[in-house]
């Protein structure tokens, strides 16, 4: 028997597999396909203070080994999520939920997190400071260590739940940003969000995505994400949720060896709606083959010795 349980800043997950924000909605579509209780947790769609309609069409482009998206944080807004989605989540998933929150000002981040204080199922707040798609009329919080620290402080002051800062890879030194979040009181970090990219249509000579640029994700970004998790593990002591290009149990284990305490799976769910279920089911077998009896021992395993 392999022990798959992991711990994220005091929150026990029965296994390390978590569908990533924006690829799992609020769970509804997947709950029609399988019992979500097989999952360690799930991270819901990035939720902002007001409802957002998102970017114009087209929002999606393809590439070898992955995809680009410029959804633009379309979501019904935090109040509607608490009223309409939270009660449904209670019916379809009894484990700990990760609430991904977005924001365009320190006050909005703090207010969104405050509103989730009384939502019992939400055990971790995942604060997205890395939306590359959204024109907020200002700088991207996640690109500047000071701004990242300010968001962390604002959110920590508004909640007693563990706060994980979700980091953008579109920076020179992601470890520096992670350290700034840790120093500002973050309970953990989650990385990576999508990499900024674009495609151009040969016939029209115009960008495929109406927003011009989009976020790259999928198997092609796996080595990039892995390297960044490695760097951040060297720089901080708080737990890391590793994310980016994971599509198999083997990928998840590799991500843990680089330093992840748990693993998020994004684009793979869109290609195969059963991706997370399959990964969870395959984990014990892969662990056994590797002689692993307690999966949490893998975290950072590639750094020692």
């Amino acid at each position: 028997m392999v022990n798959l349980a992991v711990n994220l800043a005091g929150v026990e997950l029965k296994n390390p597999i978590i569908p990533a924000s924006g690829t799992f909605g609020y769970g509804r579509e997947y709950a029609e396909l399988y019992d979500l209780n097989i999952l360690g947790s799930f991270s819901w769609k990035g939720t902002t203070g007001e409802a957002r309609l998102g970017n114009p069409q087209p929002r999606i482009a393809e590439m070898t080994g992955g995809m680009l998206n410029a959804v633009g944080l379309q979501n019904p807004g935090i109040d509607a999520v608490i009223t309409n989605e939270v009660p449904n989540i209670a019916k379809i998933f009894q484990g700990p939920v990760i609430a991904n929150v977005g924001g365009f000002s320190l006050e909005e981040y703090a207010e969104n997190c405050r509103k989730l204080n009384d939502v019992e199922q939400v055990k971790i707040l995942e604060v997205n400071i890395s939306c590359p798609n959204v024109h907020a009329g200002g700088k991207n919080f996640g690109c500047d260590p000071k701004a990242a620290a300010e968001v962390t402080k604002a959110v920590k002051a508004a909640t007693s739940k563990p706060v994980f800062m979700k980091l953008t890879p579109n920076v020179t030194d992601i470890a520096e940003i992670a350290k700034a979040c840790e120093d500002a009181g973050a309970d953990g970090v989650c990385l990576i969000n999508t990499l900024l990219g674009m495609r151009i249509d040969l016939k029209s000579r115009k960008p495929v995505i109406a927003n011009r640029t989009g976020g790259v994700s999928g198997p092609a970004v796996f080595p990039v994400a892995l390297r960044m998790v490695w760097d951040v593990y060297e720089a901080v002591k708080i737990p890391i949720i590793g994310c980016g290009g994971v599509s198999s149990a083997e990928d998840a284990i590799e991500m843990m060896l680089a330093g992840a305490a748990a693993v998020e799976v994004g684009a793979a769910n869109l290609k195969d709606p059963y991706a997370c279920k399959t990964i969870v089911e395959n984990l014990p077998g892969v662990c056994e083959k590797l002689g692993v009896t307690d999966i949490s021992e893998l975290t950072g395993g590639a750094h020692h010795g």
Partner: protein
Amino acid sequence: MKKSLFTLEHARQLTEDTYELVLSGDTSAITAPGQFVNIELPGKFLRRPISICNWTEDALMLLVKVVGEGTKELVRCVPGTELDVLSGLGNGFDMSLAGEHPILAGGGIGIAPLYGLARRMLERGQNPTIALGFRTGKDAFYLEEFAALGCRLLIATEDGSMGVKGFVTDCIKAVPECDYVLSCGPLPMLKAVHSLPQLKGGQFSFEARMGCGFGACMGCTVPIKDGYKRVCKDGPILYKEEIVW
């Protein structure tokens, strides 16, 4: 929705770039004409959405126009090839709203879902008129199959090489008694059909670039009169009164 393997039984070339594919597999998730399937292709990260042209208990028929690498690969599959398919996606047409004498208006590859729709309407005792538009006679396909249904069939080509010279809207105008449309085709065609004053109501099948095809990613959403809809899950059929262009 169901995820399952389908086996290609045969592929038949209909025009220079359009093919009919027949696949065998479990079609139990398909509940209405106008729904689509999302097909995984080797070497492609995203699946390809294709309308259901017709289906039986264990067979699925698709009409595919080659426009890029994915569709090229799809029509090149040899019989016996297994394909990973998400089936029964989207809302499909609601036949119960269409009355006794609706008109089905399709353009180009958009005629595909109208075939299965017409068959099921006939089974329900509705009597649809079918209007099909193509660029030229050489591009026309599936005419014998549509003719065999025994419905009134109107054809328009832009160059007049077959049927009336003009657009599918000209066919609709020629049958003013039809005041409800079910339509699928390129966006300019949908828009032109939508603007016809003779229509009291109608259902229009939309396309969008899709991330998932089953409602999870918000990649395909379009604005409607009071909010938005996901083309893949709340559509691809949108209703006349809710559409904004």
